[in-house]
């Protein structure tokens, strides 16, 4: 029986972690994630979980402690945001290269400088090539559901990779929404018991972690890791099917909204997708065939499936809540462009950068962009391939 509650995104994720009851959590506070680990620390203090909580002096240390605990044989979690994720950078690659299925909620926040504590996707986008699985969440319910599913995906014996679960800082982490919790037993049965492949604490079978691998073998290990990534999408779908049986809530690699017969479309991550769907509805009411695609499994990116879902459109706007400096385009735009590249007849594409540092994304912004797409379908011309929106001149 589902329990209906009114909670923040942070509280929802903390409860998902409580229900999973991991062996070890090493964490360091950082806005806007702090509330999540604060609540989880209370669960530890109150004896509601058996988790060993390690308080460390930095995020570099928190993820390092997680790497050790995971190699030792534990089911391990941490959580972070922004500068914390940036400080973990070195260890992110060590966790994925060592194939340790650590689960980490990331409450998306802008990067400094200038210093800013509010929501955008610069942090997780900076970590998109680190070998971690990334699941992105539109709202508190998705953050809760994705957190639970992340354990099954990361720990799957074909995968064994660490996973981030992303949600928008403050907009989701600190907003109270109506949510459905699963029963504790349901979650525990769903994630099952964790078994490390080569636990360091198995003294009967001694192993070494972190060896030096020279040019004669390094490429073989990298190729093996790349091959594992090609198996993630299937596992994500299998886990989603099981999750739907339990919860009634359906998940895929991405969500499509009124996309099948659409001519113009938006591609957008996380909370702003919700706002955009309302505007898509308004355009539909006016007889304009608008649609939307919201990625969920962002890494590894399902290029083939996304390309198939978008190829029939005439014009698409990819909205990025992070810019990629170096004269480049938004990270999501680059992935969408790549997914459409193999097709002879491709939709026209534009890229908009929005919502940086927590700047509000309003229905008016979606309207502006959809109107531009209507123009593009009429004129066949793109005026600006990349543009900031919601910014003062």
């Amino acid at each position, binding site marked *: 029986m589902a329990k209906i509650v009114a909670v923040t995104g942070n509280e929802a994720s903390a409860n998902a972690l409580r229900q999973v009851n991991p062996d070890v959590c090493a964490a360091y506070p950082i806005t806007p994630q702090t509330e999540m680990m604060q609540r989880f620390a209370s669960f530890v203090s109150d004896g509601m979980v058996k988790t060993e909580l390690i308080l460390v002096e930095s995020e570099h240390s928190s993820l390092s402690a997680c790497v050790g605990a995971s190699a030792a044989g534990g089911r391990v979690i941490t959580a972070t945001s922004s500068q914390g994720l940036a400080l973990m950078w070195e260890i992110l690659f060590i966790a994925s*290269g*060592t*194939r*340790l299925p650590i689960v980490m909620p990331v409450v998306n926040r802008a990067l400094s400088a200038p210093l800013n504590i509010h929501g955008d996707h610069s942090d997780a986008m900076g970590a998109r090539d680190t070998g971690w699985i990334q699941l992105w969440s539109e709202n508190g319910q998705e953050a809760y559901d994705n957190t639970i599913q992340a354990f099954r995906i990361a720990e799957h014996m074909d995968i*064994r990779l660490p996973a981030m679960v992303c949600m928008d800082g403050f907009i989701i982490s600190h907003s109270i929404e109506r949510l459905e919790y699963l029963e504790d037993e349901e979650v525990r049965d769903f994630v099952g018991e964790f078994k490390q*492949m*080569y636990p360091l604490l198995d003294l009967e*079978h*001694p*192993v*070494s*972690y*972190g*060896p030096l*691998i020279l040019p*004669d*073998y390094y*490429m*073989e*290990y990298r*190729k*093996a890791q790349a*091959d*594992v990534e090609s198996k993630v999408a299937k596992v994500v779908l299998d886990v989603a099917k099981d999750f739907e049986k339990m919860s009634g809530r359906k998940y895929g690699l991405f969500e499509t909204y009124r996309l099948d017969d659409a001519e113009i479309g938006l591609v957008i991550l996380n909370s702003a997708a919700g706002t955009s769907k309302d505007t898509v509805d308004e355009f539909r009411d006016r007889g304009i065939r608008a649609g939307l695609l919201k990625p969920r499994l962002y890494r590894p990116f399902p290029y083939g499936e996304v390309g198939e879902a978008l190829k029939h459109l005439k014009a698409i706007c990819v909205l990025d809540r992070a810019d990629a400096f170096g004269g480049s385009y938004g990270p999501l735009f680059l992935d969408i462009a790549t997914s459409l590249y193999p097709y002879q007849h491709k939709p026209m594409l534009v890229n908009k950068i929005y919502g940086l540092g927590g700047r509000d994304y309003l229905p008016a912004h979606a309207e502006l962009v959809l109107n531009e797409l209507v123009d593009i379908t009429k004129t066949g011309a793109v005026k600006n391939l990349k543009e900031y929106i919601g910014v003062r001149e």
Partner: protein
Amino acid sequence: MKLKGWKEVTPGAVVPEAGSALKFKTGSWRSFRPIWIEENCIQCLFCWLYCPDMAIKVKDGKRGEFDYNYCKGCGICALECPGKKGKKAIVMEEEGK
């Protein structure tokens, strides 16, 4: 030895075999060589304890000659050696001299 392909390597580069350093001879890295001077040796076994590899062979509780196959010439044994009456039982000599 035939090198393994990418489908044969262990996940995460874990080495699921104990004591495999035995197969990895690192003596050629050495630029300084430790020399054992037996008459100054009090058999404290500090060198065996401190050696980060397995270059000190101990038999029947007593050290003998170095196994240079595993000695990188780090010099830790020479540093730690208490010697006898102020004279070291291990000294470092430059290779090739």
